[in-house]
């Protein structure tokens, strides 16, 4: 779509050039040029968007109305059967739609104090080092990390320590709890930086202004720090939520195949039973749910704090 913009601008510019007086022409072409430059700058992203996002999405949509070939795959057809079959994956949708938001929320709850500590309480000398430390797990293999957690949350790990303080028979690994713990751990490095950035650029004088006007430190935190860090929390949450909604590795590893996400259903449908049309219908449903959720979430966040423009001040 964006790829077409330069052409449209260009033809319009040509027409103008012929019919306007010289002064006008000068100003038109310079504004046209700036628009053209903008369009050209946007073109790669636009093409990327079209070919790597919209086209596949269209293909998936098309497939979702088809039928499974006898040996698996896709044969063209027009049926709504795949959508009617969606309730067969109801549990996967339920699991994903409860655990993904919950995991996002928990991650944000853990990330905020960390980001706050880094941005506000840490001397600039240490900040970078500590921030890198927060990100460090990201540089090791995700799989290795999950294997480590399989051991930590396994019977010889956390539950055995809990048993020492009298809490016997606690099962964590291969339960939704393990998936939530894994989500917090795995996605913390994605949540901390955006919150850190919004806290870091928060004008410290605003905190003094608040104190000066009689707000206790707690109230200053609630009335100034938190709302102004909201864009960071929103960005981080969005990122984590989207990734968590599509995750299949985390539930596979820490849920031991017993916590079944939409992602797992999709892997099975596309790679095991090769029921592409049904897989496509599940994907379409996932994308639709994600889209609606994000839309309302963004609306909520934007109404809560006028973040877009506040960031400009």
């Amino acid at each position, binding site marked *: 779509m964006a790829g077409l913009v330069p052409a449209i601008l260009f033809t319009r510019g040509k027409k103008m050039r012929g019919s306007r007086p010289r002064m006008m022409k000068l100003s038109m072409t310079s504004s046209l040029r700036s628009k053209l430059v903008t369009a050209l700058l946007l073109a790669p992203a636009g093409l990327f968007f079209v070919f790597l996002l919209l086209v596949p999405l269209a293909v998936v949509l098309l497939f979702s109305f088809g039928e499974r070939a006898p040996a698996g795959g896709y044969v063209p057809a027009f049926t709504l059967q795949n959508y009617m079959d969606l309730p067969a994956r109801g549990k996967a949708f339920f699991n994903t739609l409860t655990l993904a938001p919950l995991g996002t929320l928990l991650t944000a709850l853990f990330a905020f104090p960390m980001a706050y500590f880094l941005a506000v309480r840490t001397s600039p000398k240490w900040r970078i080092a500590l921030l890198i430390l927060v990100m460090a797990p990201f540089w090791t293999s995700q799989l290795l990390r999950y294997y480590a957690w399989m051991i930590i949350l396994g019977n010889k790990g956390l539950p055995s320590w809990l048993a020492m303080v009298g809490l016997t028979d606690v099962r964590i690994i291969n339960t939704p709890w393990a998936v939530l713990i894994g989500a917090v751990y795995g996605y913390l490095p994605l949540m901390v930086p955006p919150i850190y950035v919004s806290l870091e650029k928060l004008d410290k004088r605003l905190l003094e202004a608040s104190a000066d*006007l009689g707000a206790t430190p707690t109230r200053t935190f609630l009335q*100034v720090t938190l709302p102004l860090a909201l864009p960071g929390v929103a960005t981080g949450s969005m990122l984590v939520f989207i990734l968590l909604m599509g995750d299949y590795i985390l539930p596979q590893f820490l849920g031991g195949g017993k916590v079944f996400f939409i992602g797992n259903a999709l892997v099975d449908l596309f790679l095991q039973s090769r029921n592409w049309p049904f897989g496509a219908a599940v994907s379409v449903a996932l994308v639709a749910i994600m889209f609606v959720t994000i839309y309302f979430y963004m609306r909520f966040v934007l109404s809560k704090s*006028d973040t877009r423009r506040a960031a400009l001040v």
Partner: protein
Amino acid sequence: MNHSPSVIEFRKVTKRFGDVVAVADNDLAVKAGEFLSILGPSGCGKTTSLRMMAGFEQPSSGEVFIRGENVTGVPAYRRPVNMVFQHYALFPHLSVADNVSYGLRQRNPKPARAEIDRAVDEALAMVRLEGYGKRRSYELSGGQQQRVALARALINRPAVLLLDEPLAALDRKLRRDMQIELQNLQRDVGITFLLVTHDQEEALSMSDRVCVMREGRIVQTGSPRELYDQPVNRYVADFVGKTNFFSGPTGAEVLSIRPEQIEIAANVNALPEGLMARLPVKVLNRIFLGEHTEYVVASDKLGEFMVMAPRKSEREAGVYDIGDMIAAGWRAEAERILPNT
């Protein structure tokens, strides 16, 4: 209990940042209802002083009193003073009305909604921003933001309003208007204003009293007239208004003569009677300043100095050109011998 008439008071206050002594052993008493300016060059400790009054910094030694009460160590949110920040520090996520009502909403118990609304309307009216309540701070001009910051502080009726170079970010014309507005406002609300500035004109024109600082120390506190006419040393004389210095024989003292107290005439004989000094001088430079013309002249004995000729005298005696040989002189009262510090 100390029953001082001062609304805010420093007693032997010192503030160190590591090796830097930002404020050194200062005593200062701000009287209720006055408009006091702290004047000094950059880095002399003005902001630090203000921040110790507001409670953002605590003195390294010495004590701070507000309304006779020792508030040393009391945090900012429990001090009955308010500050107008240099860059306003308006809350970007709140509307103008919510910015202005912020202080009231922190009170315990919180005032009723209607009461807050009324106070906000009043405060906005006071700074001539009626009807701007729903806007966001970034939708206002610099001057308007300045006034919101004022309203936000004044609505709390603080014991002292602390203003840290509030006009520095405004252009010259707007600054003049705001200076007048601030003065009027102070008179209307009857709240003590403590203004920090490095602009001597601003300090002199607005304040009841001015406190001149240098490298963390208060050098002199007094009315603008006192500072101008009776500076305690060369530093104050130099900082407050323009003046000519002539070195004394020992170097420990200087002779200060204000340029407007020097008279000039076409020749020595044309100078008025009763002058204690009469010198032939040569005009080196001339700058037209509207109501004044500033001459730089040179004499064989004293070297170069500045003369301020009022428009009125020009109309009588005419204008001199660069290179003209003329005469300058002054009365005995114009001479002021000051310590060379």
